[in-house]
């Protein structure tokens, strides 16, 4: 138990900070993922074949390729890509992207592919009559999406979105390979310097269990809230 003391004696405070870091990365990644799906879901539903292809390409590739490979791509290629864009604007110095941004971006791209599929499924399972009624009443497209379709879609999407959240949360453990100090990385450091991997990795597993358990409780409440009246 001494290993978990706060301060210089134990690893308690470091692990606590790492725990917060995991939460921060997961939330940022989920947010980036939802931004991605806001862009790609309309493309997926559009009648334009080219736009459809772009969106299908994104979701198929990301969901068919291991997360670790996507992370390596962004970790090794990310700063090169940013420098390339920057050089077009005449900025030629070396840019190093911080591990937090690379990590949450990588996980966000992955999470976005899953949530795009969730949103597509939810919108497609809304009764066609709802769309027709809106058109018949002469609503503008923007208004009817905002006021009619999205509220109904959220009810259908939230159970699956909570699955996406769980996946995102667990995927954040993978960005420890890039050196970002979250739960997994901190446990690795602690296990290395104390020679007690069993304890630290089991403790990391416990922290993840706490996170998944608590978030499941919260999401169930949200689910109940949005399905009032059904």
């Amino acid at each position, binding site marked *: 138990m001494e290993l978990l003391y706060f301060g210089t004696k134990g690893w308690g405070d470091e692990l606590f900070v790492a725990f917060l870091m995991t939460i921060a990365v997961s939330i940022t990644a989920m947010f980036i993922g939802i931004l991605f799906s806001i862009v790609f879901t309309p493309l997926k539903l559009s009648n334009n074949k080219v736009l459809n292809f772009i969106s299908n390409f994104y979701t*198929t*590739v990301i*969901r*068919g*390729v*291991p*997360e*670790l*490979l996507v992370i*390596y*791509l962004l*970790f*090794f*290629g990310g700063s*090169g890509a940013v420098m390339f864009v920057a050089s077009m604007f005449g900025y030629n110095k070396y840019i190093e992207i911080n591990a937090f941004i690379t990590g949450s971006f990588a996980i966000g791209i992955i999470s976005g592919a899953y949530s795009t599929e969730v949103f597509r499924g939810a919108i497609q399972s809304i009764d066609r009559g709802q769309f027709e009624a809106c058109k018949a009443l002469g609503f503008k497209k923007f208004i009817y999406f905002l006021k009619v379709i999205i509220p109904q879609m959220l009810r259908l999407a939230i159970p699956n979105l909570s699955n996406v959240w769980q996946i995102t949360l*667990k*995927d954040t*453990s*993978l960005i*420890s*390979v890039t050196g970002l100090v979250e739960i*997994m990385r901190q*446990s*690795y450091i602690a*296990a290395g310097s104390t*020679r*007690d*991997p*069993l304890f630290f*990795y*089991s403790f*990391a*597993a416990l922290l*993840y*269990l706490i996170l*998944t*358990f608590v978030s499941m409780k919260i999401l169930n409440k949200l689910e109940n809230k949005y399905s009032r009246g059904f």
Partner: protein
Amino acid sequence: MDLDLMINSFPKLLSATLTTLKLLSLSLIFGLILGLIFAIMRLSKKKIIANFSYSFSYVFRGTPLLVQIFIIYFGLGQIEYLRSTILWTVLKEPYWCAIIAFSLNTGAYTSEILRSAFQTIKPGFIEAGKSLGISNKIIFYKIQIPIAIKQSLPAYGNEIILMLKGTSLASTVTLMDLTGVAKYIISTTFKPVEVFIVAGSIYLFLTFLIHNFIKFAEKKMGTN
């Protein structure tokens, strides 16, 4: 784009795919057996057995696969007692540690898939069997299991694909699977995009094969 690198790395990545496929198939076989055992335990009327199975699947589904591999590979070696038993011959190999972790992980997910399949079997089927005087054992093997397999096929197909992606984590415990070799080539050549395209296409091709195989199996079994 460095086409030469792409062409040169292709054979290396292809031979690493073999390791990935070995890891995948072995862990799926062990995982299926474990999953079936845990699904049956979960449906048991004895609360202790059902709860044990539930907590097994909860723990393995609630923690990242990476933690599970690390506990088994780095953690278990720390127990002095284990080192003296015969188990150590298995646990000192990263290959088997990865397979154990993958099997337990996919076993947990498979048990959930099979459990829900067992629970959605209409009680009428079982009652019909009973009224014909068929013994419980035969009802289980000839009625419940075939229906459960049929019902769980689509979900199990997804699990196979998730597991294929999961095997990439073997590269974190020094195994040279497809992702491991890809990472090695990336870190020596600093050409991430090219290697990603080649390795990614191999993974996508495998996903495509699995997807179509499951579709074919579904058609064969007549599920819709």
